């Protein structure tokens, strides 16, 4: 049974089912909200330091307009192209009779393991053609489309096929069924993924610097590199946050009144796959092309540097500490971020009030900020207010949570939207405490979403660079920081083992959590369904 619940303007502390939202949940949701507010306050304070005249002068510059144009172009193009490729790939691997679906599924997730700055270096070294805006759009799309693929594939997979079957049995063609039934029900997953890609593009730095595309982020970095009074960089950061507003509210508009849930678990029976027929070879060619662009070129280049280059083997003694550093920062950081995101998602699903909607959108506004700005905000605040935690993991984990909450939110929400509130209410009427009802009923249903959240956040944290450089305890290095400093010294062969290990390590969560998210096992069911 599927249900669309409207009424986005219900009373704030009441769920649609009439139960008041628990105070505990509200308090827990305040933690991420307060964290996220920190960089916003910092940016506004610093912008204020530039004075009205300074702010207006900055906004009126020809260069600011140029940066705005580049930022918007990049953001829209990459998001649009990623949606197209990600959705098409998800549909083909989940709903068609494409050969080798299981392999394509894995290959479509693997680009996540390749940090954008590594991929960009690989492409750049093929020639100047790939520098500039068109190259950046191509390379970043290849890096970003899995962020659409993963949630859409999960949504297609967990969707109750009943509606589609009914539609087909009523004589509606496959296209009408797709447009009227399937597509609308993947919109929350698609929208969430698109938001993440858009926000990534607003904050992307390393790849754009290598590909010589100037956006707000590279300009903010340049400001920090050029001068030591950051007011002008803060004004640009504030502009960047403004750019994130339509992204955040676009998602609200997208999900307005759309809430689908299926009652009962494991109802996601298999639907007979669509036949590709004559299109099959072309679809396969498309998948091969994407695999070469997204994986073949970067991996080939990495291999080249591993085998060639005089600096090979330099600094290898740091590989142990760097691996330990990466894991000891990324794993707990991931858990912290995911745990903090959970109450935020639940609050939004249970309360349609102002605070919930505000708290839900806030992380997306900050997600477009470069790690540098968030890190400097935490330096500024922690050294003044809590000097004892400065340069400890506590501050770093806070930065990670601020930067990557939307990633966790979006992944958890994809699962949460399919869990009807009613089943938890049933559990409570049967005498379970709210907490036990949550743990025994809701949490297991959220497992796929939590798994995806852990995977995506862990991947981002593995490759995170600027916040780690600024906030990590002195002496702690990670694989990403080692890659960065060796490439900075033109020692590509020295960087290659660290980059390879980074990709390898990132591949593990991609693989495990992809399988977990998509529960790939029942392919047999698919083949049985095919005559």
């Amino acid at each position, binding site marked *: 049974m599927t249900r669309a619940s409207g009424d986005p303007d219900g009373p704030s502390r009441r769920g649609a089912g009439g139960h008041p939202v628990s105070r505990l949940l509200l308090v827990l949701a305040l933690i991420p909200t307060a964290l996220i507010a920190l960089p916003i306050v910092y940016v506004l304070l610093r912008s204020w330091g530039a004075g009205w005249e300074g702010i207006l002068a900055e906004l009126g*510059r*020809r*260069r600011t307009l140029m940066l705005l144009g580049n930022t918007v172009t990049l953001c829209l193009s990459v998001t649009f192209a990623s949606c197209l490729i990600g959705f098409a790939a998800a549909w083909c691997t989940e709903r068609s009779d494409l050969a080798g679906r299981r392999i394509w599924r894995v290959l479509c997730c693997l680009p996540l393991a390749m940090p954008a700055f590594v991929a960009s270096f690989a492409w750049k*070294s093929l*020639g*100047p053609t790939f*520098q500039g805006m068109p190259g950046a759009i191509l390379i970043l799309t290849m890096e970003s489309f899995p962020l659409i693929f993963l949630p859409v594939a999960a949504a297609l997979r967990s969707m109750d096929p009943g509606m589609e079957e009914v539609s087909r049995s009523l004589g509606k063609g496959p296209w009408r069924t797709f447009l009227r039934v399937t597509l609308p029900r993947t919109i929350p997953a698609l929208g969430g993924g698109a938001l993440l890609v858009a926000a990534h593009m607003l904050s992307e730095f390393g790849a754009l*610097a*290598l590909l*010589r595309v*100037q956006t707000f982020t*590279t*300009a903010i*970095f*340049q*400001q*920090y*590199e*050029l*001068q*030591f009074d950051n007011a002008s960089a803060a004004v640009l950061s504030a502009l960047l946050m403004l750019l994130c507003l339509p992204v955040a509210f676009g998602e609200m508009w997208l999900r307005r009144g759309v809430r689908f849930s299926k009652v009962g678990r494991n109802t996601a029976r298999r639907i007979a796959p669509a036949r590709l027929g004559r299109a099959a070879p072309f679809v396969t060619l498309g998948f091969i092309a994407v695999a070469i662009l997204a994986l073949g070129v970067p991996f080939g280049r990495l291999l080249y540097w591993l085998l060639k*280059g*005089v*600096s090979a083997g330099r600094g290898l003694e740091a590989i142990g500490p760097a691996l330990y550093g990466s894991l*000891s920062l990324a*794993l*707990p950081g991931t*858990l*912290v971020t995911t*745990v903090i995101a959970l109450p935020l998602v639940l609050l939004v699903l249970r309360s349609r009030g102002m605070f919930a909607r505000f708290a839900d959108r806030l992380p997306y506004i900050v997600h477009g900020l470069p790690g*540098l700005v968030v890190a*400097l905000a935490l*330096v*500024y605040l922690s*050294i003044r207010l809590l*000097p004892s*935690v*400065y*340069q*400890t*993991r*506590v501050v770093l*984990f806070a930065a990670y949570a601020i930067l990557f909450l939307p990633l966790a939110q979006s992944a958890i929400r994809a699962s949460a939207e399919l869990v009807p509130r009613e089943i938890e209410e049933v559990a409570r009427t049967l005498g379970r405490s709210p907490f036990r009802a949550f743990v*025994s009923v809701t*949490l*297991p249903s959220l*497992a796929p979403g939590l798994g995806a959240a852990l995977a995506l956040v862990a991947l981002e944290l593995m490759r995170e660079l600027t916040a780690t*450089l*600024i906030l990590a*305890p*002195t*002496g702690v290095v990670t694989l990403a*920081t080692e890659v960065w*400093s060796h490439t*900075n*010294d*033109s*020692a*590509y*062969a020295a960087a290659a083992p660290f980059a390879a290990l980074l990709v390898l390590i990132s591949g593990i969560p991609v693989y495990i959590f992809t399988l977990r998210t998509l529960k790939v096992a029942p392919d047999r069911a698919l083949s049985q369904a095919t005559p």
Partner: protein
Amino acid sequence: MYDVSRRQLMRAGLGFAGVSLIGGGANPARAEDQTLALYNGQHRPPVEALVAAFTAATGIAVVTRNGNSAQLASQLIEEGANSPADVFWSEESPSLAAIDEKGLLAPLEAETLKQIPATYAARTGTWIGAGARCRVVVYNKAMIELSALPKSVLDFAGEAWDGKVAFAPNSGAFQQQVVAVSLMKGRDAALAWLKGLRKYGEVYNSDSAAVEAVEGGDIAVALSNNYYWYALAKELGPDNMNSALYHMGNQDPGTLITVSGAGVLKSSKKSEAAQRFVAFMVSEAGQQAIVDAIAEYPLRPGVVSPFPMKPFDELDPAPVTPADLGDAADALALLREADLA
């Protein structure tokens, strides 16, 4: 059965997070009292070499925080009097000048300052050069003849060089070059030069990216520091290089001496050990360790670099000292006026 195992998984995960949070809270740099905290914006090979030699000589351990000089300077300014840093080693002198202007640096010992020519230290005596490098022109040998290269770096800002010159306005060294042009030829000439470069030149993110582009045949010429070419030559093999260095000489700002350098933070609680570190940096052993690891010129007389660089006294550089170049605020104003920043 499945549900139970999943719940256990969840509990185990939360437990791990808790343990990691508590266990990870300790700060190794603070636990060990004798250990110096070095904020390092300079390239790592020379710094790692010096730290190893210093620790071997004195028994004092050094924990390094690596980053970009300007970012670390921003961070030091944010940290203010609470900074855990003892020594700041910057790739460029303007970052040192900037934190000196904020009153964050302590005076160096007179004995340390005496070790190298006063030209390569702050006039206030708060920071001192560790190694010198010079601005050069890197050119692709297949794309351009050595004889076709101009006599002055100012000539690159003309139409004849349209699409042929790579430069990195972000780089601290380029900013120093802008200040040098402004000091020697006047502000208007510097602005006209920058506007010409914006119109006809190609912006790169860093000197090293520009040098790699020349080596790769993407562009004919790059304005750069000398050592990026040597780093690339070490990586690719000197005999395989498609590019070469061109020193303008003639006291032109195209050949400009700049320094990497270090200072002791006023807020350091281990200032004695920190002063020892900087003193070691300009000692004979320290200077040798640095120039063995990077193609910079030693500042201490008598120390010899193993890199085949053009001899220091034959460079005939611009008559501007690192201390003249200040904190790059003037360069930023010019870059902004030229719409390059």
